């Protein structure tokens, strides 16, 4: 079975509602992700609830832009 990562993205530092989407791989700190038409940088990743079958449930914090992590 191919794992599927259902991720709750929360945007740090601005008034953004965040996003929920399925990914083919788990997000990694420093990686860039596209939510809608915008690009964000992953700051933190943690498991939100235990996996069920091939589904993994994660929470990731992101910030705007694609520059280096501070």
């Amino acid at each position, binding site marked *: 079975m191919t794992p*599927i990562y*259902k991720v*709750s993205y*929360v945007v740090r530092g601005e008034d953004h*509602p*965040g*996003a*929920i*989407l*399925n990914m083919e791989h788990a997000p990694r700190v420093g990686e860039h992700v596209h*939510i*809608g*038409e915008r690009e964000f940088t992953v700051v933190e990743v943690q498991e*939100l*609830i235990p996996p*069920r*079958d*091939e*589904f993994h*449930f994660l*929470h990731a914090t992101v910030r705007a832009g694609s520059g280096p992590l501070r």
Partner: protein
Amino acid sequence: MGDLETVLKQAELFEGLSPEEFLALSSLCREKRYRANETITRQGAEGDSLFVVCEGFVEVSLSAIEPDTGPRAVVHLGRGQIFGEMALVDQGPRSATVRSITDDTVVQVIDHEAFTALCEKYHHLGYIVMRNMAADLSFKLRHRNLTGR
């Protein structure tokens, strides 16, 4: 079915179905495409369909409670996510407005009547899909708790 099968198998709604059940449910799907900024459901309107996001993103927003403020976006939903499930479960009016925020947003639509008939005919399918919808609502609540919106 090809690409549709691949996309739907990555949606939590279909997780745990047997191949026959998967085929029965996916045969109810019909595709709709949207350009950016098109309204898919409107808060307060009657609703009798469930939607699965296959490509692109949609924005879920609520009408303003306070005067002099605009609608409040509560979440963006991407590939594999469902919306419209509340009206499908409780048959009340749409609880939120949903609009596409990217060009080439593709959703699959499942109509309430055919969906309910399938669940009543195949109880295991009905149990699995309702469990998956409950899990999805729970995940959305957790997301909302994390965002504080």
